[in-house]
């Protein structure tokens, strides 16, 4: 089984075997049950910890790498002293001079935050419409949005490029935002429609009785109830666009507009001078940070979003 992570220097161990109940008869659930659950608990803790190391060590190692200078990174046998001689030099260099990476980080932030906001707004409006209103063709139109989830954008990238080019949306951060929003929209609409459907009609009705119009009732009364759904669709959109690669590669040619992954390609191929692995790993770690921070802070939305798709499927 290929469950090892050979890119780690220390822990490359197979994933844990799942807990196995002891063989033999079990006369009563109470007495052996307790012994068995202790065995299971040990297996759970040991197995879970080992697996955690397999997943964490490569990532922690990469972060450590980003503080090493290039000559240590490319050294075949660095001393332990060199390995742990850490500095911020890589990061400083990336943000110094003409600061390609700094600009790329800025571009990526602008693009992915805008995508998150636009996706959340469009998805909320559409979710409200699909979840609360009855109109002719509603189910059909909702089906249409959902089916577009299944059209892989990788496949339509060529005609999409020509069309965006004709619309003046290539080499444009706005174009990228519109494209990413479209890619993330169906999932967002799906989540928001579910969110609207789970809110009892009475809550919205009482707001209406108090005289709130459609949009005011949406904003003031429903907002707290909808926030999880909004957070889910915004978070997905942000994470999906933050390091999106193929679209950015296709739609951007002006390197002043490059997003972070494209700048990393430039670093990797030495477009800014000699290839410096210290810079590359530092850039990749910069790309990692928002994902990890957002995920850890908002993971209940993230996992809930996935589960909402999974449970119904």
């Amino acid at each position, binding site marked *: 089984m290929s*469950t090892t992570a*050979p890119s780690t220097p220390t822990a490359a161990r197979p994933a844990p075997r799942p807990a196995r109940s002891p063989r033999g008869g079990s006369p009563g659930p109470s007495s052996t049950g307790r012994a068995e659950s202790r065995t299971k608990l040990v297996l759970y803790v040991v197995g879970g910890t080992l697996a955690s190391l397999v*997943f964490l060590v490569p990532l922690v190692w990469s972060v450590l790498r980003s503080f090493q200078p290039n000559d240590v990174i490319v050294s075949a046998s660095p001393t332990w002293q060199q390995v742990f001689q850490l500095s911020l030099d890589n990061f400083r260099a990336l943000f110094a001079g003409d600061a390609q990476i700094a600009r790329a980080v800025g571009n990526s932030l602008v693009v992915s935050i805008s995508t998150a906001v636009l996706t959340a707004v469009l*998805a909320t409006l559409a979710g409200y419409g699909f979840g609360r209103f009855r109109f002719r063709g509603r189910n059909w139109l909702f089906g249409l949005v959902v089916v577009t989830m299944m059209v892989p954008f*990788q496949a339509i*990238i060529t005609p999409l490029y020509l069309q965006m080019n004709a619309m003046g949306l290539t080499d444009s951060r706005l174009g990228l935002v519109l494209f990413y929003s479209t890619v993330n*929209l169906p999932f967002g609409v799906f*989540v928001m429609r579910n969110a609207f459907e789970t809110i009892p009609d009475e809550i919205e009705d009482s707001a209406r009785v108090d005289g709130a119009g459609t949009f005011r009732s949406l904003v003031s009364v429903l907002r707290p109830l909808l926030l999880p759904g909004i957070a889910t669709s915004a978070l*997905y959109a942000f994470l999906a666009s933050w390091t999106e690669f*193929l679209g950015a590669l296709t739609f951007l040619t002006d390197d002043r507009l490059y997003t972070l992954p494209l700048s990393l390609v430039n670093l990797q191929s030495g477009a800014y001078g000699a290839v410096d692995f210290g810079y590359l790993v530092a850039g990749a770690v910069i790309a990692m940070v928002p994902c990890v921070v957002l995920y850890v802070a908002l993971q209940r939305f993230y996992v809930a979003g996935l589960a909402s798709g999974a449970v119904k499927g």
Partner: protein
Amino acid sequence: MSGVAGLGTDRAAATGALQAVRHRPPRSLTHPPHQGVLLVAPALAFVVVFVLAPLAFAVYMSMTDWPLIGSYEFTGLSNYLGVAQDPVFWRSVGYTVLYTAIVTLPILVLGYVLAVVVRSNRRGSTLFRTIFFLPYVIGLTTLSFLLVLEAQPDSGAVNVVLRWLGITDGSTAWLADGRLATGLICVMIVWGVSGLTMVLLMGGMQGVPREVHESAEIDGATWWQRERSITIPMIRRTIAMSLVISVIGSLLAFTQFYVLTRGGPGTETQTVVMYIYQRGFVQLQLGAASALSIVLVVVVGLVTAAQFRLLREKD
């Protein structure tokens, strides 16, 4: 694959959505239909402009010799025939299928095992879940860049570990050899995306009633017997769905290969999406690239349709 991955989760939702279309009694007084139409219009406009229009355009273009600039002529189905006769295309198809075949089962098995670890509501299971899912959240683009350095001969961690274990002398140039690069990328992918399968399966597993498990345990069923005859049948739809997500993700693979091998050496590790990109944006044969796009949309559609059939039959 970060974009692909995003689509993968979309697909999970899509499956549910199509089955959950419900009817409500009319409530036209508080919710006038025209307002509903206005609310959904912007989202629909995006879908039409950026998905359906290019799709229709692709069908049209695929039957022309569309250049980047200048006029074009109708060429009928010759693009499709040309693609079908291009050995480089078939090599990329073969390679993509091989790659998909290698990674699919390990992703499912590792995802299942991880889901077993985190499905219990024991102390620490949330922490484990967070950690196992972390590589997926970071995304394949970033992971691929990190692997670039660790795959270097002599200095990369992959080689350092193998040398330390006495398996190789540590001088392997992983990315310069098609087979080695494929193996390394597969390991990275399995490590990086099993977390998604884990979360999906975990959702299914938590829907299995505890009592069923407990009574089977009292009857003396071993762990594997219980998994095989209770859990797996009960979550087979979730398993099917996570399989489709991972298979489609693999068929659309691009980023990890672009970053790590650029499809090389030669075209040895060129995936289908890379081939389309190459035809369209490097060789500027947009008609041919569009023909390929249509084929890919149809293939992905067939895989998805197969999933729907599978789900409906076993319901």
